[in-house]
Protein backbone atom coordinates (compact mmCIF):
# COMPACT_ATOMS: atom_id res chain seq x y z
CA UNK A 1 0.00 0.00 0.00
CA UNK A 2 1.28 3.43 -0.93
CA UNK A 3 1.66 5.80 2.04
CA UNK A 4 2.27 9.09 0.23
CA UNK A 5 2.83 10.76 -3.12
CA UNK A 6 6.18 12.35 -3.92
CA UNK A 7 6.53 14.97 -6.65
CA UNK A 8 10.07 14.46 -7.75
CA UNK A 9 12.82 15.06 -10.31
CA UNK A 10 15.48 12.45 -11.00
CA UNK A 11 18.57 14.71 -10.84
CA UNK A 12 17.47 16.57 -7.70
CA UNK A 13 19.54 15.80 -4.61
CA UNK A 14 16.72 17.13 -2.42
CA UNK A 15 14.19 14.73 -3.96
CA UNK A 16 16.67 11.89 -3.58
CA UNK A 17 16.96 12.67 0.13
CA UNK A 18 13.30 11.72 0.62
CA UNK A 19 13.46 8.71 -1.70
CA UNK A 20 16.45 7.44 0.27
CA UNK A 21 14.76 7.83 3.65
CA UNK A 22 11.61 6.10 2.39
CA UNK A 23 13.72 3.24 1.00
CA UNK A 24 15.69 2.80 4.23
CA UNK A 25 12.44 2.65 6.21
CA UNK A 26 10.76 0.45 3.59
CA UNK A 27 7.87 2.86 3.06
CA UNK A 28 6.10 2.43 -0.32
CA UNK A 29 4.93 5.56 -2.15
CA UNK A 30 3.75 6.87 -5.52
CA UNK A 31 6.01 9.08 -7.60
CA UNK A 32 4.95 11.91 -9.87
CA UNK A 33 7.83 12.92 -12.14
CA UNK A 34 8.03 16.71 -12.55
CA UNK A 35 9.95 18.20 -15.48
CA UNK A 36 12.13 20.50 -13.37
CA UNK A 37 14.62 21.03 -16.18
CA UNK A 38 14.32 22.09 -18.92
CA UNK A 39 10.51 22.32 -18.41
CA UNK A 40 10.47 24.36 -15.16
CA UNK A 41 7.20 22.56 -14.51
CA UNK A 42 7.64 23.07 -10.75
CA UNK A 43 6.86 26.73 -11.40
CA UNK A 44 3.69 26.01 -13.38
CA UNK A 45 0.32 27.29 -12.06
CA UNK A 46 -0.76 23.76 -11.17
CA UNK A 47 2.40 23.07 -9.16
CA UNK A 48 2.38 26.51 -7.50
CA UNK A 49 -1.17 25.76 -6.35
CA UNK A 50 0.26 22.77 -4.50
CA UNK A 51 3.52 24.44 -3.42
CA UNK A 52 3.58 28.25 -3.58
CA UNK A 53 7.35 28.18 -2.89
CA UNK A 54 7.91 26.62 -6.30
CA UNK A 55 10.39 24.00 -5.12
CA UNK A 56 10.77 20.24 -5.33
CA UNK A 57 10.20 17.79 -3.81
CA UNK A 58 6.64 17.94 -2.54
CA UNK A 59 5.21 15.26 -0.29
CA UNK A 60 1.46 14.72 -0.10
CA UNK A 61 -0.22 12.33 2.32
CA UNK A 62 -3.97 12.80 2.37
CA UNK A 63 -4.57 16.45 3.31
CA UNK A 64 -0.99 16.95 4.46
CA UNK A 65 1.36 18.74 2.06
CA UNK A 66 5.04 19.15 2.99
CA UNK A 67 7.50 21.22 0.95
CA UNK A 68 10.58 21.11 3.18
CA UNK A 69 12.69 17.96 2.91
CA UNK A 70 13.78 18.07 6.55
CA UNK A 71 10.12 18.00 7.57
CA UNK A 72 9.51 15.10 5.16
CA UNK A 73 12.27 13.08 6.83
CA UNK A 74 10.76 13.87 10.23
CA UNK A 75 7.31 12.85 9.01
CA UNK A 76 8.62 9.57 7.58
CA UNK A 77 10.52 8.66 10.76
CA UNK A 78 7.74 9.70 13.13
CA UNK A 79 5.11 7.73 11.23
CA UNK A 80 7.04 4.79 9.84
CA UNK A 81 9.90 3.94 12.19
CA UNK A 82 8.51 1.92 15.09
CA UNK A 83 11.98 1.76 16.70
CA UNK A 84 12.09 5.56 17.08
CA UNK A 85 15.84 5.49 16.45
CA UNK A 86 15.86 7.40 13.17
CA UNK A 87 14.39 10.46 14.88
CA UNK A 88 14.86 10.42 18.67
CA UNK A 89 12.83 13.63 18.97
CA UNK A 90 11.94 13.21 22.63
CA UNK A 91 15.46 12.40 23.79
CA UNK A 92 16.67 15.52 25.61
CA UNK A 93 20.26 15.08 24.44
CA UNK A 94 19.83 13.60 20.95
CA UNK A 95 16.64 15.38 19.82
CA UNK A 96 18.08 18.91 19.74
CA UNK A 97 21.27 17.66 18.07
CA UNK A 98 19.20 16.16 15.26
CA UNK A 99 17.38 19.49 14.84
CA UNK A 100 20.73 21.29 14.74
CA UNK A 101 21.85 19.05 11.85
CA UNK A 102 18.58 19.54 9.99
CA UNK A 103 19.33 23.27 10.04
CA UNK A 104 22.86 22.63 8.75
CA UNK A 105 21.40 20.39 6.04
CA UNK A 106 19.33 23.34 4.84
CA UNK A 107 22.52 25.41 4.68
CA UNK A 108 24.16 22.70 2.57
CA UNK A 109 21.18 22.81 0.20
CA UNK A 110 21.78 26.55 -0.25
CA UNK A 111 25.54 26.17 -0.79
CA UNK A 112 26.57 22.74 -2.15
CA UNK A 113 23.13 22.16 -3.68
CA UNK A 114 23.19 25.44 -5.61
CA UNK A 115 26.85 25.03 -6.57
CA UNK A 116 25.92 21.68 -8.11
CA UNK A 117 22.87 23.03 -9.96
CA UNK A 118 25.09 25.80 -11.29
CA UNK A 119 27.70 23.28 -12.45
CA UNK A 120 25.36 20.74 -14.08
CA UNK A 121 22.38 22.86 -15.24
CA UNK A 122 24.04 26.28 -15.49
CA UNK A 123 21.68 27.55 -12.79
CA UNK A 124 21.63 31.38 -12.72
CA UNK A 125 23.53 31.99 -9.46
CA UNK A 126 26.99 33.38 -8.68
CA UNK A 127 28.88 30.11 -9.21
CA UNK A 128 32.08 31.25 -7.49
CA UNK A 129 30.20 32.52 -4.42
CA UNK A 130 28.11 29.39 -3.90
CA UNK A 131 31.13 27.16 -4.48
CA UNK A 132 33.06 29.07 -1.83
CA UNK A 133 30.16 28.80 0.61
CA UNK A 134 29.91 25.09 -0.15
CA UNK A 135 33.62 24.53 0.51
CA UNK A 136 33.27 26.25 3.87
CA UNK A 137 30.20 24.19 4.79
CA UNK A 138 32.03 20.98 3.84
CA UNK A 139 35.02 22.02 5.97
CA UNK A 140 32.72 22.51 8.97
CA UNK A 141 31.06 19.14 8.28
CA UNK A 142 34.52 17.54 8.15
CA UNK A 143 35.48 19.15 11.47
CA UNK A 144 32.33 17.95 13.23
CA UNK A 145 32.62 14.47 11.74
CA UNK A 146 36.25 14.37 12.90
CA UNK A 147 34.94 15.04 16.42
CA UNK A 148 32.78 11.95 16.00
CA UNK A 149 35.68 9.85 14.69
CA UNK A 150 37.89 10.90 17.62
CA UNK A 151 35.05 9.89 19.96
CA UNK A 152 34.85 6.49 18.23
CA UNK A 153 31.50 7.23 16.57
CA UNK A 154 30.25 6.78 12.99
CA UNK A 155 27.03 8.80 12.77
CA UNK A 156 26.29 12.48 13.23
CA UNK A 157 24.16 11.92 16.34
CA UNK A 158 24.17 9.03 18.83
CA UNK A 159 25.14 5.50 17.86
CA UNK A 160 22.52 4.84 15.17
CA UNK A 161 21.94 6.63 11.86
CA UNK A 162 19.27 9.33 12.09
CA UNK A 163 17.39 11.62 9.73
CA UNK A 164 20.30 14.04 10.36
CA UNK A 165 22.66 11.76 8.39
CA UNK A 166 20.17 11.36 5.56
CA UNK A 167 19.45 15.10 5.45
CA UNK A 168 23.15 15.94 4.99
CA UNK A 169 24.16 12.96 2.86
CA UNK A 170 23.03 13.84 -0.70
CA UNK A 171 24.57 17.30 -1.02
CA UNK A 172 27.83 16.17 0.62
CA UNK A 173 28.00 13.07 -1.59
CA UNK A 174 27.35 15.02 -4.80
CA UNK A 175 29.76 17.91 -4.15
CA UNK A 176 32.27 16.51 -6.71
CA UNK A 177 29.67 17.46 -9.37
CA UNK A 178 30.56 21.06 -8.48
CA UNK A 179 34.31 20.35 -8.48
CA UNK A 180 34.48 19.94 -4.70
CA UNK A 181 36.30 16.62 -4.38
CA UNK A 182 36.39 14.57 -1.18
CA UNK A 183 40.18 14.00 -1.26
CA UNK A 184 40.82 16.39 1.64
CA UNK A 185 37.86 15.16 3.69
CA UNK A 186 38.62 11.71 5.11
CA UNK A 187 35.93 11.89 7.79
CA UNK A 188 33.27 12.84 5.23
CA UNK A 189 34.49 10.07 2.94
CA UNK A 190 34.16 7.38 5.58
CA UNK A 191 30.77 8.66 6.74
CA UNK A 192 29.46 8.68 3.14
CA UNK A 193 30.65 5.08 2.86
CA UNK A 194 28.81 4.15 6.06
CA UNK A 195 25.55 5.63 4.71
CA UNK A 196 26.02 3.81 1.41
CA UNK A 197 26.46 0.56 3.34
CA UNK A 198 23.03 0.82 5.03
CA UNK A 199 20.60 -1.99 4.18
CA UNK A 200 18.00 -0.77 1.70
CA UNK A 201 20.26 2.02 0.32
CA UNK A 202 19.14 3.33 -3.09
CA UNK A 203 21.09 5.33 -5.66
CA UNK A 204 20.68 8.36 -7.90
CA UNK A 205 22.78 9.55 -10.86
CA UNK A 206 26.20 10.41 -9.35
CA UNK A 207 25.78 8.19 -6.28
CA UNK A 208 26.31 4.58 -7.19
CA UNK A 209 25.93 1.51 -5.07
CA UNK A 210 28.91 -0.14 -3.40
CA UNK A 211 30.10 -2.80 -5.83
CA UNK A 212 32.07 -4.42 -3.05
CA UNK A 213 28.80 -5.18 -1.25
CA UNK A 214 26.85 -6.21 -4.33
CA UNK A 215 28.45 -9.31 -5.73
CA UNK A 216 30.91 -11.28 -3.68
CA UNK A 217 33.50 -13.57 -5.10
CA UNK A 218 34.12 -16.89 -3.39
CA UNK A 219 37.70 -15.73 -2.77
CA UNK A 220 36.39 -12.79 -0.77
CA UNK A 221 36.96 -13.66 2.90
CA UNK A 222 34.02 -11.59 4.18
Amino acid at each position, binding site marked *: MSHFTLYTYVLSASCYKVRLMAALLGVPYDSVAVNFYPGFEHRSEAMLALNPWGTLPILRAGDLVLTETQAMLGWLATNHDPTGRWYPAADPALGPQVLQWLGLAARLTGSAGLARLHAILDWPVDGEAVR*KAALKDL*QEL*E*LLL*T*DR*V*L*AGQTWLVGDHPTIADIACFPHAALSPDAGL*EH*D*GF*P*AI*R*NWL*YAVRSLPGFVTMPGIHE*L*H*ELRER*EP*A*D*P*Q
Partner: protein
Amino acid sequence: MPSMPVGLSRDLPPKRVMRASVGGQDIVVWRASNGDIAAWDNRCPHRGMALSHGFVRGNALACLYHGWHYEQSGRCSYIPAHPDLDPPATIHTTRFGVTERDGVIWVDTTDTAKPGMLTEPLDPLRSLIAEVSEAAVEAACHSTPFEGEMPQPSGSGLYALGTIRLALLTNPLGPNRTQVTVLTSPGLSLQTRLALSRWCETLRRNAEATGTGGA
Protein backbone atom coordinates in the same frame (compact mmCIF):
# COMPACT_ATOMS: atom_id res chain seq x y z
CA MET B 1 61.91 12.87 -3.22
CA PRO B 2 61.62 11.39 0.30
CA SER B 3 58.53 9.58 1.56
CA MET B 4 55.57 11.91 1.84
CA PRO B 5 52.64 11.64 4.28
CA VAL B 6 49.44 11.12 2.27
CA GLY B 7 46.93 10.41 5.05
CA LEU B 8 46.20 8.52 8.25
CA SER B 9 46.05 4.73 8.45
CA ARG B 10 42.82 4.98 10.44
CA ASP B 11 41.16 6.86 7.55
CA LEU B 12 41.75 3.94 5.16
CA PRO B 13 40.13 0.80 6.62
CA PRO B 14 40.35 -2.59 4.86
CA LYS B 15 38.63 -2.81 1.43
CA ARG B 16 38.83 0.92 0.86
CA VAL B 17 40.36 3.10 -1.81
CA MET B 18 41.58 6.70 -1.71
CA ARG B 19 43.25 9.17 -3.98
CA ALA B 20 46.53 10.85 -3.05
CA SER B 21 49.18 13.01 -4.64
CA VAL B 22 52.95 13.27 -4.24
CA GLY B 23 55.09 15.69 -6.23
CA GLY B 24 52.38 16.13 -8.85
CA GLN B 25 51.94 12.37 -9.28
CA ASP B 26 48.30 11.25 -9.05
CA ILE B 27 48.16 8.14 -6.85
CA VAL B 28 45.63 5.53 -5.78
CA VAL B 29 46.14 4.07 -2.31
CA TRP B 30 44.07 1.06 -1.34
CA ARG B 31 43.85 -1.53 1.40
CA ALA B 32 43.02 -5.18 0.74
CA SER B 33 40.68 -7.29 2.88
CA ASN B 34 43.74 -8.72 4.61
CA GLY B 35 44.88 -5.23 5.67
CA ASP B 36 47.78 -4.93 3.20
CA ILE B 37 48.21 -1.55 1.56
CA ALA B 38 49.42 -0.59 -1.94
CA ALA B 39 50.08 2.70 -3.76
CA TRP B 40 50.07 2.94 -7.57
CA ASP B 41 49.90 5.40 -10.40
CA ASN B 42 46.21 6.32 -10.50
CA ARG B 43 45.73 5.05 -14.06
CA CYS B 44 44.35 1.73 -15.11
CA PRO B 45 46.81 -0.02 -17.50
CA HIS B 46 43.81 -0.91 -19.70
CA ARG B 47 42.33 2.43 -20.80
CA GLY B 48 43.61 4.86 -18.21
CA MET B 49 40.55 5.14 -15.97
CA ALA B 50 41.35 6.56 -12.51
CA LEU B 51 41.78 3.50 -10.30
CA SER B 52 40.70 5.57 -7.29
CA HIS B 53 37.13 5.12 -8.61
CA GLY B 54 37.63 1.37 -8.33
CA PHE B 55 36.63 -1.02 -5.60
CA VAL B 56 38.27 -3.78 -3.61
CA ARG B 57 37.40 -7.41 -4.28
CA GLY B 58 39.04 -9.61 -1.71
CA ASN B 59 42.72 -8.82 -2.07
CA ALA B 60 42.51 -7.22 -5.52
CA LEU B 61 41.58 -3.75 -6.74
CA ALA B 62 38.95 -3.77 -9.50
CA CYS B 63 38.75 -0.94 -12.03
CA LEU B 64 35.31 0.63 -12.25
CA TYR B 65 35.39 0.84 -16.04
CA HIS B 66 35.82 -2.70 -17.41
CA GLY B 67 36.43 -4.48 -14.13
CA TRP B 68 40.00 -5.62 -14.62
CA HIS B 69 41.41 -6.85 -11.31
CA TYR B 70 44.91 -6.06 -10.03
CA GLU B 71 46.43 -7.88 -7.10
CA GLN B 72 48.72 -6.21 -4.57
CA SER B 73 51.83 -6.93 -6.61
CA GLY B 74 50.21 -4.76 -9.31
CA ARG B 75 49.74 -7.72 -11.62
CA CYS B 76 46.48 -8.03 -13.50
CA SER B 77 44.75 -11.15 -12.16
CA TYR B 78 41.37 -11.15 -13.88
CA ILE B 79 39.72 -9.71 -16.99
CA PRO B 80 35.90 -10.09 -16.84
CA ALA B 81 35.52 -10.03 -20.64
CA HIS B 82 37.89 -13.03 -20.85
CA PRO B 83 37.19 -14.93 -17.65
CA ASP B 84 39.20 -18.00 -18.70
CA LEU B 85 42.31 -16.06 -19.66
CA ASP B 86 45.27 -15.97 -17.32
CA PRO B 87 46.35 -12.36 -17.96
CA PRO B 88 49.96 -12.02 -19.12
CA ALA B 89 52.45 -10.80 -16.48
CA THR B 90 53.22 -7.79 -18.66
CA ILE B 91 49.88 -6.23 -17.66
CA HIS B 92 50.55 -4.52 -14.36
CA THR B 93 50.13 -1.19 -12.64
CA THR B 94 52.96 1.24 -11.88
CA ARG B 95 53.78 0.70 -8.21
CA PHE B 96 55.20 3.10 -5.64
CA GLY B 97 56.76 2.45 -2.27
CA VAL B 98 54.33 2.69 0.63
CA THR B 99 54.79 2.19 4.37
CA GLU B 100 52.73 2.85 7.47
CA ARG B 101 54.31 4.23 10.59
CA ASP B 102 53.01 6.24 13.53
CA GLY B 103 49.51 5.80 12.09
CA VAL B 104 50.55 7.67 8.92
CA ILE B 105 50.62 6.38 5.34
CA TRP B 106 53.90 7.36 3.63
CA VAL B 107 54.38 7.11 -0.13
CA ASP B 108 57.61 7.36 -2.08
CA THR B 109 57.26 7.77 -5.84
CA THR B 110 60.96 7.30 -6.57
CA ASP B 111 62.16 4.47 -4.38
CA THR B 112 61.04 1.94 -1.81
CA ALA B 113 59.31 3.99 0.86
CA LYS B 114 61.58 4.97 3.69
CA PRO B 115 59.64 5.30 6.92
CA GLY B 116 58.80 8.81 8.03
CA MET B 117 61.06 11.12 9.89
CA LEU B 118 59.37 11.14 13.28
CA THR B 119 61.85 10.76 16.10
CA GLU B 120 59.38 10.08 18.91
CA PRO B 121 56.14 8.13 19.31
CA LEU B 122 53.10 10.26 18.44
CA ASP B 123 49.37 9.66 17.91
CA PRO B 124 47.61 10.62 14.68
CA LEU B 125 45.09 13.46 15.11
CA ARG B 126 43.79 14.36 11.66
CA SER B 127 44.72 15.15 8.09
CA LEU B 128 43.38 18.13 6.15
CA ILE B 129 44.04 20.25 3.07
CA ALA B 130 44.74 24.00 3.18
CA GLU B 131 44.39 26.07 0.02
CA VAL B 132 47.79 27.76 0.53
CA SER B 133 51.49 27.07 0.08
CA GLU B 134 53.46 24.82 2.41
CA ALA B 135 55.43 27.86 3.60
CA ALA B 136 52.21 29.68 4.54
CA VAL B 137 51.08 26.68 6.63
CA GLU B 138 54.41 26.58 8.46
CA ALA B 139 54.38 30.34 9.01
CA ALA B 140 50.84 30.17 10.43
CA CYS B 141 51.90 27.38 12.77
CA HIS B 142 54.45 29.71 14.36
CA SER B 143 51.76 32.28 15.05
CA THR B 144 48.66 30.29 16.00
CA PRO B 145 48.47 29.87 19.78
CA PHE B 146 46.82 26.88 21.42
CA GLU B 147 45.20 27.72 24.74
CA GLY B 148 47.46 30.74 25.07
CA GLU B 149 50.69 28.90 24.23
CA MET B 150 52.55 29.78 21.04
CA PRO B 151 53.92 26.63 19.34
CA GLN B 152 57.69 26.34 19.86
CA PRO B 153 59.45 24.67 16.92
CA SER B 154 61.85 21.89 17.86
CA GLY B 155 62.97 20.72 14.41
CA SER B 156 61.67 18.36 11.68
CA GLY B 157 58.11 19.64 11.85
CA LEU B 158 57.90 19.09 15.62
CA TYR B 159 56.47 21.69 17.97
CA ALA B 160 55.88 22.04 21.68
CA LEU B 161 52.53 23.51 22.74
CA GLY B 162 53.05 23.84 26.47
CA THR B 163 53.38 20.22 27.61
CA ILE B 164 51.92 18.85 24.37
CA ARG B 165 54.17 17.67 21.55
CA LEU B 166 52.83 18.14 18.07
CA ALA B 167 54.07 17.15 14.60
CA LEU B 168 52.93 19.05 11.55
CA LEU B 169 53.74 17.02 8.42
CA THR B 170 53.20 18.77 5.11
CA ASN B 171 52.80 17.41 1.61
CA PRO B 172 52.70 20.16 -1.04
CA LEU B 173 49.94 19.40 -3.56
CA GLY B 174 50.49 22.55 -5.61
CA PRO B 175 51.76 26.10 -5.26
CA ASN B 176 48.65 26.98 -3.26
CA ARG B 177 47.48 23.66 -1.89
CA THR B 178 49.01 21.71 0.98
CA GLN B 179 48.03 18.51 2.69
CA VAL B 180 48.66 18.73 6.43
CA THR B 181 48.92 15.68 8.69
CA VAL B 182 48.88 16.43 12.39
CA LEU B 183 50.08 14.11 15.18
CA THR B 184 50.23 14.74 18.92
CA SER B 185 51.72 13.30 22.09
CA PRO B 186 50.10 9.97 22.88
CA GLY B 187 47.51 9.56 25.61
CA LEU B 188 45.83 12.98 25.47
CA SER B 189 42.24 13.23 26.73
CA LEU B 190 39.40 13.29 24.19
CA GLN B 191 38.64 16.85 25.22
CA THR B 192 42.20 17.97 24.43
CA ARG B 193 42.15 16.12 21.10
CA LEU B 194 38.89 17.82 20.09
CA ALA B 195 40.39 21.19 21.04
CA LEU B 196 43.53 20.44 19.00
CA SER B 197 41.38 19.46 16.01
CA ARG B 198 39.80 22.92 16.24
CA TRP B 199 43.27 24.45 16.53
CA CYS B 200 44.06 22.79 13.15
CA GLU B 201 41.03 24.60 11.74
CA THR B 202 42.27 27.93 13.13
CA LEU B 203 45.70 27.20 11.70
CA ARG B 204 44.17 26.64 8.27
CA ARG B 205 42.12 29.83 8.49
CA ASN B 206 45.18 31.85 9.56
CA ALA B 207 47.29 30.35 6.80
CA GLU B 208 44.62 31.04 4.19
CA ALA B 209 44.13 34.60 5.43
CA THR B 210 47.81 35.49 5.18
CA GLY B 211 49.16 33.04 2.59
CA THR B 212 49.43 33.60 -1.14
CA GLY B 213 46.19 31.71 -1.75
CA GLY B 214 44.30 33.80 0.82
CA ALA B 215 40.95 35.32 -0.08
